[in-house]
């Protein structure tokens, strides 16, 4: 029953192999299920960013997925925090300084102080 068996290799592309190269086709991100979109961030880019670290050898596909989701949550959080600052300043437009304030106000965002001019 060779014909059927050969086609059964529809397994998701696991990056656990020795090559460690970024797979050219995009990893299949589950987005078709309603209410369960994975992330707004392009996974290939997230993966490229992870690989840009010379110490990193291999990262599994699922790890990339959840890292992308975490980054998305991060953006949401910092945006909301910054918006609070803008509101305190009675402004309707989010300015850069609102982000600066949000970053300084939260301990966990200390790592960002290098990105501020």
């Amino acid at each position, binding site marked *: 029953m060779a014909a059927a068996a050969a086609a059964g290799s529809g397994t998701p592309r696991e990056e656990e192999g020795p090559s460690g190269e970024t797979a050219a086709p995009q990893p299949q991100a589950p987005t078709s299920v309603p209410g369960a979109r994975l992330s707004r961030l392009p996974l290939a880019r997230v993966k490229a960013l992870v690989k840009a670290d010379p110490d*990193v050898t291999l990262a599994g596909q699922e790890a990339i997925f959840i890292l992308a989701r975490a980054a998305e949550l991060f953006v*949401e959080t910092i945006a909301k925090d910054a918006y609070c600052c803008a509101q305190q300043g009675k402004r309707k437009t989010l300015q850069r300084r609102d982000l600066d304030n949000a970053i300084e106000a939260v301990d966990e965002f200390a790592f960002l102080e290098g990105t501020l001019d």
Partner: protein
Amino acid sequence: MASSSGNDDDLTIPRAAINKMIKETLPNVRVANDARELVVNCCTEFIHLISSEANEICNKSEKKTISPEHVIQALESLGFGSYISEVKEVLQECKTVALKRRKASSRLENLGIPEEELLRQQQELFAKARQQQAELAQQEWLQMQQAAQQAQLAATASASNQAGSSQDEEDDDDI
């Protein structure tokens, strides 16, 4: 999206993706451009931060590949533990989708065509292929033969020209 610069450190998350997220998080809020730019950079930094930490955790675990567990531990240790429950939902979704895809590909094979029919078609295709191979081989063989015959005729013709009189060899039929 071709990044031809080749410098990995210039990589960031695309602006459009960030804009979309900001818009969803803060609908109807105006955001200054330089603020957006900063968010892009912060997001990139965040990814570097978490992946670096996850990588260290991975190395300590003596595994070679960064796993979701490593990322989760990294989030925890860096103070982003509040993200973990949502992030775990993604993991669940991954596994569900992977499972569905495996099922779907096997369902697709069984769809419509019964196994015996598939077998029969397979045998048919093999037989056809064998036949084509045989025909091809035979053609090649004939061509080789003809070429050999030509060569032989040419050889005997020149030989008999040199020899002068004896014409008998030309009547030889080599098949």
